[in-house]
């Protein structure tokens, strides 16, 4: 297995090279010019030429790429054109952290809600409640995030005024009791974004848990446990749940991908300055270095997450032989 991990890790830089080069080429060969964006409405050709020369935009694209690569290897991801005076790392990592926090909470909620629902559905298998649970979750998955957010915001923020309209203010907020004691509570800013994030995710988790739980429920040791008079909760918790969790590891990657993509709308619609919103702005204004950095970081995170998921799976389930995909 060590060899397999090493092989996968060696593949990572190759992959990042390919990803960065194709992004680079796409951004530069495409029309549009970040210099014209930063120059404002009065655009003097001499100035534009000077800026291009300073940034190296006047050189051949492969050469520009090598220049970028050379800097990137040393940890310098370049400078944003839209946020001058700030390096790309300074710009993207705090925003990534915001999105990551939101994503982590969303992921936890997806699992925390999805798993019990899956177990419940499996227990109710054969009754009409089982398909109803799964059907409802499937329906929730089908509602586009774009459609979920406006009514929620209208209802809870505009009409009832229970929640703030959006923005980002950390995961926790302080709830003041009589203005003296402060207890941290989940920040109300997060409620609507989290609902939007998690609704489409439940079904995947619940369905997978349900399938495994159905199989486990038929296993001898579970039947034995039941016949021994163990309470249902104990059976579920001790025997069914651990087995049902195993395949879930494989969907963590999928769930993450969904959350990353959801970030684009949720952040745009809810006024959260996270990485999704930044990436979209960078793409439309050709902020080359930011585009590159975000895609490369996204790709790396994606690959590493999947590798970790595979490794955990390999550790907990020795039947899975990593690397023997053939045959």
């Amino acid at each position, binding site marked *: 297995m060590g060899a397999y991990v090493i092989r996968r890790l060696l593949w990572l830089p190759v992959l990042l090279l390919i990803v960065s080069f194709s992004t680079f080429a796409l951004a530069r060969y495409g029309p549009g010019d970040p210099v014209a964006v930063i120059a404002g409405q009065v655009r003097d050709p001499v100035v534009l030429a000077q800026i291009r020369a300073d940034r190296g935009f006047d050189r051949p694209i492969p050469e520009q790429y090598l220049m970028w690569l050379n800097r990137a290897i040393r940890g310098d991801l370049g400078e944003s054109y839209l946020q001058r005076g700030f390096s790309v790392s300074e710009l993207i990592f705090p925003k990534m952290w915001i999105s990551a926090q939101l994503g982590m909470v969303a992921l936890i909620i997806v699992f925390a809600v999805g798993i019990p629902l899956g177990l419940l559905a499996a227990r109710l298998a054969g009754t009409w409640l089982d398909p109803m649970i799964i059907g409802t979750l499937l329906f929730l998955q089908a509602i586009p995030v774009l459609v979920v957010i406006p009514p929620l915001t209208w209802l809870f923020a*505009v009409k009832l005024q229970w929640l703030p309209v959006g923005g980002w203010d950390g995961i926790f907020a302080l709830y003041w009791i009589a203005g003296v004691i402060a207890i941290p509570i989940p920040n109300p800013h997060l409620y609507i974004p989290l609902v939007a994030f998690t609704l489409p995710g439940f079904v995947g988790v619940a369905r997978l848990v349900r399938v495994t739980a159905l199989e486990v429920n038929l296993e001898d040791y579970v039947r034995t446990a039941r016949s021994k008079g163990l309470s249902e909760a104990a059976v579920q918790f001790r025997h069914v749940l651990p087995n049902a969790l195993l395949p879930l590891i494989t969907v963590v990657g999928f769930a993450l991908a*969904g959350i990353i*993509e959801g970030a684009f*709308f949720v952040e745009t619609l809810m006024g959260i300055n996270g990485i999704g919103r930044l*990436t979209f702005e960078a793409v439309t204004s050709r902020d080359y270095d930011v585009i590159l950095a975000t*895609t490369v970081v996204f790709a790396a995170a*994606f690959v590493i997450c999947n590798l970790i998921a595979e490794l955990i799976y390999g550790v907990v389930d020795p039947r899975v032989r990593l690397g023997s995909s053939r045959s």
Partner: protein
Amino acid sequence: MTSATMDTAETHPEQMGDSEWRIVWRRLRRKRLAMASLVVIGIIYAMGIFAPLLAPYSYTQQNLDIPRQGPSRQHLLGTDTLGRDMLSRTMFSARTTLIVTTAVVLSGSLVIGNGLGLLSGYRGGWVDALIMRVGDVFSSLPGLVMLILINATLGTRVIEAVRGFERTTGITGLVASGLPSYLLVFSALSLFFWVGTARIIRAQILQLRERDFITSAEALGATPYRVIRYHLLPNVAFLIILQVSATLGGIAGSEIVLTWFGVGVQPPAASFGAMLFEGSGPRTFQQSPHLLLVPGGVVTLLLFAFNLLGDALNDAVRGR
């Protein structure tokens, strides 16, 4: 939009001939939800196909005297900001969805995905390695970012190319029909939607190759074409259908999302993405909820139907 392809990956359909198709169909027929989904999809797609005939108004016809009106006898689903008939726009948006999903399924899933999957599984060796590594690259790219990037950067290039084509051939109206943006949206989507299909097909082919009937066919000197056409293809057909049904929702959703971001189908062509964009915003929702609810409802219904159908098909093929 990533679609969960996990379930289908685990299926191991037995060898199937014509009669098996009939069995699966019979199983599917018994599932009422699946049939309902088929009907819903059918209605929405029919709306798309016959939009020019069915729509009470042109989707561009404006009436600035009656903007943002709720449903009425003249406009069954109300009007939008420019006083255009929402029902007609919904129908033409369904047409866009229809065109994009069909084109992407045909090109991305069926042709590229299957072709490469078959090739990869059958030939093996460096061909297999190359295809799978290219697949790895695509599947590790953040799909939506790349789609937005591709559409934003190459949009003008494609339009110019099509315009050049018009000039050299004398054909007109291609650009005006919105073809370039359709072309771009679907080719960009195809780029990302072939990988799943190819992987599953390859895995299945690898298994089948070890089977007796293939080895004996090869031993008897059957050409690769014969082996693929008569022995391998029929055996992966169900997988292909499962895979297609699993990706349909993702493809339809992606087009909507791209258009919502302004890099998909261009106005005045109708798209659910553009309609949703107009209706989003809590205050707009407060004042004219139909702007969001009409397209939102249709999209939800369509995606839900795709989900249910995919599920039911999966069950039917697995013998449930």
